[in-house]
């Protein structure tokens, strides 16, 4: 399984992601430069975390117009696997590959902490190694993670089982306190209807080795690799 990690000016989780793919998962992985038009034959594209283009205009709004993103859009439309992490999730929303938009966190604070997340859809290529309702502990680090979509879109998302991860407490209950950024329906991870494009706010690449305090992030990468 060959992975490609897209590098925008301002990406800062690109190296961490590549490290996990290569050194922990032992999979072939390459960087994909935002100005290129070449996906180098990868099986899965990862849009990493960071602050592409300094978050100017809106988070992810400028990265969306990168030359490579046109290739990524076509790749996704052909059914290719695309995972957007944090800023990558924001880019996918701006690109329209996922429904909705991100607002500033409800408390107006940049949040950098571990959170608990419940897997509400384990039947995706990104979560097939999880159990339904399994609670993961992963770090978040974002300013604009307050997921928003109009009520009718939200209804569709729920009906189609597109909510993959939700902010919950340790016991797996989606309380208001656990919903740290104020996201609609506590949404932390959202997949498209076709099931090949996933956006998540938490950082699995920062929690894929015991040394870093959690290995729960591996679950997502290992689901992709079909171990």
């Amino acid at each position, binding site marked *: 399984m060959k992975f490609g990690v897209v590098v925008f000016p301002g990406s800062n989780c690109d190296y961490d992601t590549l490290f996990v793919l290569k050194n922990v998962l032992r999979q072939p992985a390459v960087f994909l430069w935002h100005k290129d038009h070449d996906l180098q034959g990868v099986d899965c594209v990862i849009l990493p975390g960071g602050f592409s283009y300094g978050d100017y*205009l*809106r988070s992810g*709004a400028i990265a969306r*117009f990168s030359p490579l993103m046109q290739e990524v859009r076509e790749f996704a439309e052909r059914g290719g696997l695309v995972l957007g992490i944090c800023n990558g999730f924001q880019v996918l929303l*701006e690109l329209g590959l996922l429904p*909705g*938009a991100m*607002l*500033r966190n*409800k*408390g*107006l604070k940049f949040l950098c902490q571990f959170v608990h997340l419940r897997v509400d859809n384990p039947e995706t290529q990104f979560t097939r190694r999880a159990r339904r309702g399994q609670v993961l502990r992963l770090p978040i680090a974002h300013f604009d993670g307050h997921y*928003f*979509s*109009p009520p009718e879109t939200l209804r569709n998302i729920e009906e189609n089982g597109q909510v993959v991860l939700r902010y919950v407490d340790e016991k797996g209950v989606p309380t208001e306190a656990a919903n740290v950024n104020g996201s609609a329906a506590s949404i932390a991870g959202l997949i498209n209807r076709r099931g090949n494009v996933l956006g998540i706010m938490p950082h699995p690449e920062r929690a894929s080795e015991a040394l870093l305090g959690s290995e729960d992030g591996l679950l997502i990468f290992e689901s992709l690799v079909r171990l």
Partner: protein
Amino acid sequence: MSLKGSSGMRVRILVSFKETVLDPQGQTVKNALLTLGYGFVKDVRQGKVFEIALDGITEEEARRAIPEIADKVLANPIIEKFTWEILTEPKRV
């Protein structure tokens, strides 16, 4: 009335959150104003202003292009709305 090759046109575009979207930054500014004793402040909505200088297009073309730019790039229509105005009349050539 369109003027071919007109220049010196400037437009101002105002982008703000839709009424249905919570604006916590505006709320915070409002609370600060209330704390300062401006009790008459009822609501604050925060937005973004863009001033764009144009060249080489007619006013008619600009009137078509500006809402397109605002809708496609400057605002995210899911959460934001926009208004715009031409600031300077085009110079006659």
